[in-house]
């Protein structure tokens, strides 16, 4: 059974708690990376006069970094609910693509209710880890993967709201690179093995660089840049390097 192969390729028993454990283990680096980010969110919210409890509730009900930063900023500055809704929609629209991609990797045995639960936990990092994993994704694996980051995100927010400085500022700013380090550790080994993956990544990086530095297009917001880069790079990849049926498992 191909779907029971974990990362290291060892055969393991199909066991619910085992799958949860694997997921949880894979989620630990995400959880650690989330703490400084959500800490900053808690800090910004508290500075803007948002009660700590409200900030933590936002983290527990939204679980999105850029979306929350944009949203809290709007709330602090007294924006309308329509503005808040539209901004959340635009900043978070990339999750729609990720959710679609994961819908194809989830085991078809997973019920609608369980899909509704898992959908809540799709973040950039959870998507990154689970979409790279070989074979079908089980509910236990996914819930294990989401559990740690969820707690880390809420905990960091509370700490940020309650304390003005958890760590020396220089160390805290250095921790900002952790999630990027994680992304690199996922992409680089894959691009060593597959020229197609390398080409797709390189195209996406070029597009996001253009939107950062080239005049006239550098006003486009981050959420859209990811969507545009993804759609263009993956379309080129799918046309130039289409996958064979048997490769797509």
């Amino acid at each position, binding site marked *: 059974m191909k779907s029971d192969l974990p990362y290291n390729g060892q055969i393991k028993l199909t066991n619910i708690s085992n799958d949860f454990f694997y997921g949880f283990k894979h989620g630990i*680096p995400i959880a*650690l990376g989330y703490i400084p980010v959500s800490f900053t969110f808690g800090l910004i919210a508290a500075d803007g*006069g948002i*009660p700590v409890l409200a900030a933590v509730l936002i983290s527990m*009900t*939204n679980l*999105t970094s850029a*979306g929350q930063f944009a949203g809290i900023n*709007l*709330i*602090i500055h*007294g924006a309308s*609910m329509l503005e*808040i809704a539209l901004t959340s929609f635009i900043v978070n629209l990339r999750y*729609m*693509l*990720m*959710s679609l991609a*994961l*819908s194809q990797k*989830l085991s*078809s045995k997973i019920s*609608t209710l369980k*899909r*509704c639960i*898992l*959908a*809540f936990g*799709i973040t*950039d990092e959870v998507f990154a880890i689970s979409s790279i994993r070989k074979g079908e994704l089980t509910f236990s694996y996914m819930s294990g993967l989401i559990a740690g980051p969820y707690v880390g995100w809420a905990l960091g927010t509370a700490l940020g709201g309650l304390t003005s400085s958890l760590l020396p500022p*220089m160390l805290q*700013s*250095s*921790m*900002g*690179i*952790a999630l*990027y*380090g*994680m992304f*690199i*550790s996922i*992409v*680089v*080994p*894959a691009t060593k093995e597959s020229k197609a*993956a390398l080409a*797709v990544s*390189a*195209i*996406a*990086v070029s597009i*996001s*660089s253009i939107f*950062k530095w080239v005049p006239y297009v550098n006003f486009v917001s981050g959420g859209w840049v990811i969507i545009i*880069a993804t759609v263009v790079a*993956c379309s080129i*990849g799918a046309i130039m390097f*289409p996958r064979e*049926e048997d490769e797509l498992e």
Partner: protein
Amino acid sequence: MSNVYSGLIVMALVTYMIRVIPMVAVKGKLKSRFIQSFLYYMPYAVLGAMTFPGILYSSGNVLASAVGGVFALFLAYNNQSMMKVALGSIIAVYLCQRLL
């Protein structure tokens, strides 16, 4: 300030709808080879676009972040675990910031 709790509910609902609709609406496997290939390549595109140039602005010091990024590339190229790459890049950025 807007009402915090109304804002919270609006943000949470919009964000959740974005996540849940594709996952519940698309249950079967999509047949198109183009779409399957597209989705297969998605992680590489998403991660690439999210990492660069964002990584350069992760610490408030572009040079230190760049050094951290190069060190992360080096570690990842040598197949180090995710945890080691993440911690290694933090240490590199921290040391650079101390020295600069």
